[in-house]
């Protein structure tokens, strides 16, 4: 398909694609209200399909979205505001919140390694899977330190975020986890920023709990991942 027109020849095309795809996702979600049809998922699928069909370079697409990528790290910083607004919850339920984050992080890291060993997953892939619930900047560093393959970890972190962000609330409904604080803590502990973005749509309380969990689970992952690898 090298002879076809390069749609990314215009420097604004990449950003237009992202926002356009997100708008389509938002309209689809508003029309159907189907929980699995999250705008972020629809938009990502549209982008992947268009890049593949027109044989466009992901690197070029990435560079053309510099404006969004510039703001991305700040999304973690601004999450301090909803947490501040819900500070009384943190004060009142601090013990439950911290225990939940520790339980979730230890469980998810332990079971990913155990299940991987059980079905015979490649060792390097298992190592790359261990930090998958941490937010990407943390997971990338942890993967490098414990001997994983950092770019593979980045992809796995994204997939974990999407699975939890899209299916998490439904899974928790089936598990009987109805408390808003508990739901937010689980979303942030397991599905980091993507889960937090979804939680924010559910409620500000859930979003703020998720952002707190994301920050603490990330730290916990950095501290515990080398220990888990030592046990393997």
């Amino acid at each position: 398909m090298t002879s076809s027109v390069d749609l990314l020849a215009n420097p604004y095309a990449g950003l237009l694609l992202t926002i356009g795809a997100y708008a389509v996702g938002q309209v689809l979600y508003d029309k159907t209200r189907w929980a699995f049809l999250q705008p972020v998922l629809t938009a990502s699928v549209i982008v992947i399909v268009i890049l593949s069909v027109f044989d466009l370079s992901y690197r070029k697409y990435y560079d053309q979205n510099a404006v969004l990528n510039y703001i991305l790290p700040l999304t973690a910083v601004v999450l301090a505001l909803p947490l501040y607004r819900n500070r009384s919850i943190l004060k009142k339920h601090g013990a439950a919140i911290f225990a939940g984050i520790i339980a979730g992080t230890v469980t998810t890291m332990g079971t990913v390694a155990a299940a991987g060993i059980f079905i015979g997953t490649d060792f390097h892939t298992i190592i790359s899977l261990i930090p998958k619930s941490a937010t990407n900047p943390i997971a990338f560093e942890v993967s490098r330190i414990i001997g994983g393959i950092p770019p593979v970890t980045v992809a796995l972190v994204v997939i974990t975020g999407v699975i939890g962000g899209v299916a998490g609330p439904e899974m928790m409904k089936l598990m009987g986890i109805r408390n808003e604080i508990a739901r937010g803590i689980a979303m942030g502990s397991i599905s980091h920023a993507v889960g937090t973005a979804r939680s924010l749509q559910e409620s500000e309380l859930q979003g703020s709990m998720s952002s707190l969990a994301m920050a603490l689970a990330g730290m916990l992952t950095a501290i515990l991942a080398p220990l888990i690898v030592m046990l393997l």
Partner: protein
Amino acid sequence: MAVKQFSIILAVTFVSWAVSEIVPLPVPYNVVGFMLLFFALLSGIIKEQQVDKVCDFILRYMALFFVVPIAGVIEYGDLLKDQFTEIFVPLGVSILLGFFAAGKVTQFIIHRGNRKETGHGI
């Protein structure tokens, strides 16, 4: 107003970067920034009204910023296809159990606390 608010966020982020350059922490500087902004708000160094407009704007469109990195999975399509079961079985199991552990433990302790407080089960 928006420029002033955005500058405060940038300043917090810059200070966080400086802190993490000096003190070796196991987290990236934007997570340090999250904690720094939280403590600045708690202590009153930064007032809610000084950052709320910009924060709420970014929070409202937060999911949009993840489209580009998620689409990056495209670069690992072959690896994910080749090791599909070996990757997605442990991934699925650990996500499910992780949600269960985090959610149940948090909920259990909150409910136990509520019972103590009110003297009867809710």
